[in-house]
């Protein structure tokens, strides 16, 4: 008996921070895979189409298959026996799962941190220092006649960013799309993105801060040293020209990526850019936005913020939240050998942290939640296979501009969601710790 394929309209792609919500998914009648992802970009297509339900064990302890309940018990034991349990990851899962993770950190007096700390954490810190002028992406589409990208390659990292939001997108005051805009690109080398730019500034590596600082001085009409070109590769004249355009546009925006935030200078680079956008408001309306990578990293920032007051790198050791990037951010505390248990949700620190941190990861019990095996899950004491958010799991995610959307999963997974795993662990921890969580309280 042949079934009609299921169609999911307006499905939401969580591959990157664009969180496009206009995808039409065709689900194979067997209910186990997606055969078509209309509107999705190349990255989104592979995200949807390559997703298969594999035959992994739902849970393993030390590499041996165990029942879900055994794994939950073991994970809870690891947690309650730790003096400094750290929870990390969370940017590729739903807000519902993120809330459970914060609750665990709270009930355990542990530490919680998201991948923000290794991508746009510097932006978060800069934001706390200088603020920001920002907008939802539709404002860019409708109004921006000056668009700049700094230190990122959206054509490859966020392929639909141009079309949906910022470059070719047609909006209220930009009915002709790209013709109505000036597009500027700043990078250390030409990229596939820079091809579309009207203005390309190829700057010397590591001179972002100097250039941004010089632009701020120009905007403010302040003194500038004439060694600028030698140091940044951009001539004074070219820069003046650019700054004039920025001051005279109707609505300007600068998008910035990790090329800015994770190079030397980090949060100061991000801060300089945010301040430049703010300074420009003396002349016109101007905003700046980080182009966030992970599908729900923005949600993680939001959830951790509203529950604790701080966006990432939060420590509950003393029974209340404390925040200090560098001290309570996971890569740093592992690098100093500080945590004595680690729970990783949808991330792979064992493959991308510093050598010192990885060595420490290997020396402590690790709990991992991931739809697929990773370096981290392979060295985990307890490894859960979980369902993939957006494809198998419903819930809330946040677009890079803080717009919350509700996922439309395509088909069911045999694996539990991160939220379900974490909630089970939370309940067991509370039992072990004698904390009575009632059903009405924030579940």
């Amino acid at each position, binding site marked *: 008996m042949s079934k009609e394929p299921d169609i999911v309209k307006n499905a939401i792609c969580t591959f990157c921070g664009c969180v496009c919500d206009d995808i039409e998914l065709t689900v194979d009648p067997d209910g186990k895979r997606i055969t078509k992802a209309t509107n999705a970009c190349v990255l989104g297509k592979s995200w949807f189409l390559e997703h298969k339900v594999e035959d992994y064990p739902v849970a393993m302890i030390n590499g041996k298959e165990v029942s879900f309940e055994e794994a939950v018990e073991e994970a809870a034991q690891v947690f309650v026996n730790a003096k400094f349990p750290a929870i990390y990851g969370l940017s590729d899962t739903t807000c519902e799962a993120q809330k459970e993770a914060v609750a665990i950190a709270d009930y355990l007096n542990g530490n919680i941190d998201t991948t923000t700390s290794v991508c746009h954490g510097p932006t978060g810190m800069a934001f706390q220092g200088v603020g920001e002028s920002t907008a939802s992406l539709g404002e860019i589409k409708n109004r921006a006649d000056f668009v700049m990208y700094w230190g990122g390659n959206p054509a490859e990292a966020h392929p639909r960013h141009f079309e949906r939001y910022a470059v070719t997108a047609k909006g209220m005051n930009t009915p002709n799309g790209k013709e109505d805009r000036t597009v500027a690109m700043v990078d250390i080398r030409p990229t596939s993105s820079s091809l579309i730019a009207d203005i390309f500034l190829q700057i010397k590596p590591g001179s972002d801060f100097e250039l941004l600082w010089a632009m701020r001085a120009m905007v403010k009409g302040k003194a500038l040293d004439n060694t600028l070109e030698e140091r940044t590769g951009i001539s004074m004249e070219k820069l003046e020209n650019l700054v004039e355009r920025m001051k005279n546009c109707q609505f300007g925006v600068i998008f910035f990526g990790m090329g800015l935030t994770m190079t030397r200078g980090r949060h100061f680079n991000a801060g300089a850019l945010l301040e430049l956008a703010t300074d420009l408001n003396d002349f016109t309306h101007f905003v700046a936005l980080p182009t966030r990578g992970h599908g729900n990293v923005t949600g993680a920032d939001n959830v951790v913020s*509203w529950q604790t007051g701080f966006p990432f790198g939060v420590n509950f050791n003393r*029974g209340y939240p404390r925040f200090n990037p560098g001290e309570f951010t996971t890569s740093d505390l592992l690098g100093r050998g500080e945590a004595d248990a680690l729970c990783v949700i949808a991330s792979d620190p064992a493959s991308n942290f510093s050598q010192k941190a990885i060595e420490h990861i290997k020396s402590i019990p690790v709990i991992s939640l991931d739809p697929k095996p990773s370096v981290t899950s392979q060295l985990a004491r307890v490894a859960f296979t979980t369902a993939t958010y957006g494809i198998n799991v419903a819930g809330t995610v946040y677009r890079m501009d803080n717009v919350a959307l509700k996922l*439309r999963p395509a088909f069911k997974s045999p694996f539990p969601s991160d939220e379900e795993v974490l909630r089970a662990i939370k309940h067991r921890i509370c039992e072990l710790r004698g*904390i009575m969580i009632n059903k009405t309280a924030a579940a």
Partner: protein
Amino acid sequence: MSAAIRIKNGKVYDPINNVDGEIKEICIKDGKIVDSVPSDSHCIDAHGMVVMPGGVDIHCHIAGHKVNLARKFQPEDHRHDVQPRVGNLRSGTGGTVPSTFTTGYRYATLGYTTAMEAAVPPMGARHTFEELHDTPVLDKGYYVLLANNVCLNQLLEKGRTEEFKEAVGWWLNAAKAYAIKLVNPGGDEPWKGRKNSNVHNLDEQISGFDLTPRKIIKALIDASNDLELPHPAHIHCNNLGHSGNYKTTLETMKTAEGRRAHITHIQFHSYGGEVGKNPTSQAAEISNYINDNPNISADVGQVMFGKATIMTGDAPLTWLLRNMTNNKWINADTECESGCGILPFSYQEHIYTHALQWAIGLELFLLAKDPWRMVLSTDHPNGGSFENYPKLIRLLMDKDFRNEQAGNVNQKAIANTNLLDIDREFTMHEIAIISRAGPAKLLGLSNKGHLGIGADADVTIYDEMKDREAMFNAARYVIKSGELFINNHEFCSDLDGRILHVEPQYDEAVEDIIRPFFEDYYTVQFDNYAVDDDYVHGAEVIPTKSR
């Protein structure tokens, strides 16, 4: 459901039911006030205590995108004000923008059980519900920003008033809002435009539209009344904070033409003087108008000295303040719907304007003939945190304290007001009106703000103390929906509150107008925009005429 509770020997203040300090028994069962409970029910002896309905905050900023921005913006504000975890309650941090759990617990500690988030663009509704879900104890809803909605304004400028009304109905449903909020009507277009400017009078044309702020105000007041929403249009007038703005405020109130309208944080809109120069007090003028016009209600938006956080849909105002203070600043635009500005702020006794604002707020309270229509707010956290309410209550109840405090602030400012000439001291009954019964009535929450049979069992019990600040600072008992949340000053167990929203009827054909607008100008799919019931589970829909 919860066990029955009997509260005996307490002095009860229940203005809606004309109970003014009588010793009276209050019985609670299944989350409601009932006339009796079995004799073996849990009994609270409230001898020497004051029993009131739970507090109702008609205007505060506690959830949503801008609140969360302000929250993560200020780690320095949280650091020295932590909320340690107790039992199964969650930990958190305080400061002027506390974390969600802490917000709920601290409101409850003051005896508040209902609070209304005052400004959310519809696109931020889902986020707002996420946060409200994590704001324990309180029942809560929010007001949806519609006065700078491009789609609505396009309908309005074309004179399509019927479709406008239907679209408003659609939006209230899609966003599951409680009331319509106007912030600086028409001001977003000039702000988001090239000159970062603002509109300055009600009859000025809004850039890009054949429309004036007055037309928007009128249309939304009408829509609120025609849809018979429980709470009328909630209006943050144009020209907030500018000298001479009382004229705009009067004009806005006149625009209601006798229909119901609520002017919010009216203190910020009661200034005389010339633009660009020091303000003066026009509290008397504003009070007179409201005293004479029963269709108008207001909350004060009292300024309290110390740390505050300015967060408002009125972005151009925050830009002005930013340039004055050089503080860190946030601007956050929402496509087709709203603007937003945020900055840390501090009200200081010695500064003329701040002292004047403080005095004007008190004047407005004290000159109001009808406390039911001039209710308590600090526009938390704009005029100061809600945690200042006890002190504010003392200022209203204790003239000597008030005059002593007035002696510690900028004397030039005080001399420019009538504060010292006013002898009025609020009674306990009047405090119960401005903090509970009044806001509940203005909100159309018939089950709140009173202790009559059938009311929600939201009850607070305070030790009666001479020092009213100390008294209202920490309720001895707080019962929410019939369950004890605070028992003898101790937290019992975490409690959820519920979402309050409206679902007025509208003609679904209006979606044929809105959908194409979305396709052209929004970046969220029309079908992904509306908030579904998952985000408001356990909600209470407050009836409107049509629903």
